[in-house]
């Protein structure tokens, strides 16, 4: 196997003079900002990958005096921890991205929704926010950012559940449409972006869309911060150019005995060793919000799958039946197969259930349980049965 070094990038954590970038953005027209982000090819860094420029364009197009920028810092996907690091190290760039987004769509309010698990960061973040507010006032911006704190619910990372939570309710996802671009938090047009997306947008304004779109591939432009954990000698946070294969990734981060990589966390996809070489990490192959977990041959993929299913069964909001009952039945189902209480062909029935959940669930949680389920069951069937 060809060994090629991965292209490490330093964009997200690079120190910048935010006053300079924000002064530049202040002089730009809203359309110009949106066009630059569109040209860069940036797609949302939280996992879903919606083009950021388009989201801003749609929200900007709505005629409504009150709009919101929401920063989604409810990073709950198992194996993802990059947003915490970004907030810890360069919160001023997150705020900067929000101000630029606000200018682009015509919003004066920003909300950062921080997961409860990261509450220890709040005092430091508030302090930085205070001096940040002073700095943008000086430039002439009319924009204020507030914090909302989560309380330990994975589902609140889903955009409409997050809005419900901000409004003081149970974090249950809403029906779509209407989409947040027309009716988001408090029923107002809202652009909700991931922490890393906002920082990237700010860096695109600083460096220009051309230099950004030179990185990566046609479908996955730019670089991405990866959260790497599991069986690896070098766990941690790495910013890498997109477009590498899983094999190239494993060559760099594996322990020499990697049998599978879970790309995109519990709601992502399991890639087995035999598919490493031709599976690309990105929107053309396996997408990820950053979570990369390596498993070596000492690990039981049954345990991995069971752990994920337990996670979903607990974190399902319980609102819609396919997800609520589906998650519970998948847990029970794989346990029965393992104990030999049912024939191994029962797994085929469970795969059908996972497919049903994909089409019938209300939100991304229930819709993506089948990703890990199918890719683990299909590639490691014997480990699930015996």
């Amino acid at each position: 196997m060809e060994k090629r070094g991965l292209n490490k990038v330093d964009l997200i954590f690079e120190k910048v003079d935010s006053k300079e970038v924000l002064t530049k953005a202040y002089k730009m027209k809203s359309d110009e900002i949106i066009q630059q982000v569109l040209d860069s090819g940036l797609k949302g860094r939280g996992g879903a990958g919606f083009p950021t420029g388009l989201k801003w364009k749609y929200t900007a197009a709505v005629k409504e005096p009150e709009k919101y920028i929401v920063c989604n810092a409810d990073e709950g996907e198992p194996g993802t921890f990059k947003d915490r690091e970004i907030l810890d190290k360069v919160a001023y760039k997150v705020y900067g991205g929000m101000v630029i987004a606000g200018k682009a769509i015509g919003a004066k309010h920003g909300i950062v929704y921080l997961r409860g698990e990261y509450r220890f960061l709040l005092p430091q973040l508030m302090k930085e926010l205070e001096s940040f507010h002073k700095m943008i006032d000086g430039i002439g911006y009319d924009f204020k950012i507030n914090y909302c704190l989560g309380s330990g619910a994975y589902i609140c990372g889903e955009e409409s559940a997050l809005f419900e939570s901000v409004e003081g309710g149970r974090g249950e996802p809403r029906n779509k449409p209407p989409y947040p671009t027309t009716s988001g938090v408090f029923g107002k047009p809202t652009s909700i972006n991931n922490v890393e997306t906002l920082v990237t947008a700010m860096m695109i304004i600083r460096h220009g869309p051309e230099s950004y779109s030179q990185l990566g591939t046609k479908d996955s432009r730019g670089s991405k911060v990866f959260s790497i954990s599991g069986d690896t000698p070098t766990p941690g946070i790495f910013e890498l150019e997109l477009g590498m294969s899983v094999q190239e990734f494993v060559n760099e981060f594996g322990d020499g005995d990697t049998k599978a990589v879970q790309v995109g966390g519990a709601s992502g996809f399991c890639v087995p060793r035999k598919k490493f070489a031709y599976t690309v990490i990105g929107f053309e192959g396996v997408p990820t919000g950053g979570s990369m977990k390596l498993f070596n041959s000492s690990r039981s993929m049954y345990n991995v799958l069971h752990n994920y299913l337990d996670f979903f069964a607990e974190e399902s909001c319980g609102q819609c039946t396919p997800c609520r009952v589906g998650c519970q039945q998948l847990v029970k189902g794989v346990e029965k197969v393992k104990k030999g209480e049912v024939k191994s062909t029962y797994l085929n029935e469970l795969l059908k259930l996972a497919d049903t959940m994909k089409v019938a669930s209300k939100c991304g949680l229930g819709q993506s349980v089948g990703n890990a389920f199918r890719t683990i069951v299909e590639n490691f069937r014997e480990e699930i049965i015996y």
Partner: protein
Amino acid sequence: MYHVGNLVKELSDKHGRSRESLMPILQGIVERHNYLTDEAMVEVAKELDISAADVYGTASFYTFLDTKVRGKYVIRVCKTITCSMKGKGEIIQTLEDMLKIKVGETTADQQFSLIETNCIGWCHKAPAILINEIPYTELTTEKIVEIIKGYMQKK
């Protein structure tokens, strides 16, 4: 049990009395008293002029807004895959032995509660726990004993 006293009023003065103030108020009570009593939730309902069922409905949705009795120090052990792979089991065992309680229980003196939680975002430094809001990472059985001893002396 505790008496919520003036806390609900203080928090409502600080965060406001509209519906979106509910979460910060409940979080404020939990920050002080570690869990929500029926009395506290009824008091919040009165202050915000919404039904107590509505307050309970919101509170019971969130795992960090406990409606069961919790100790002064709530220990949340991450049970998601990487922490599980890297020794979460030994951490739980050590904590159970030290505190003489099982997962889900609170010590008789109401100092410690031991619960498991889903991914807290420290997979690269597994195994990890939260004690109230403070994360402790890359734990070993020796390290966790020292940490808990520290908390025991605090009381």
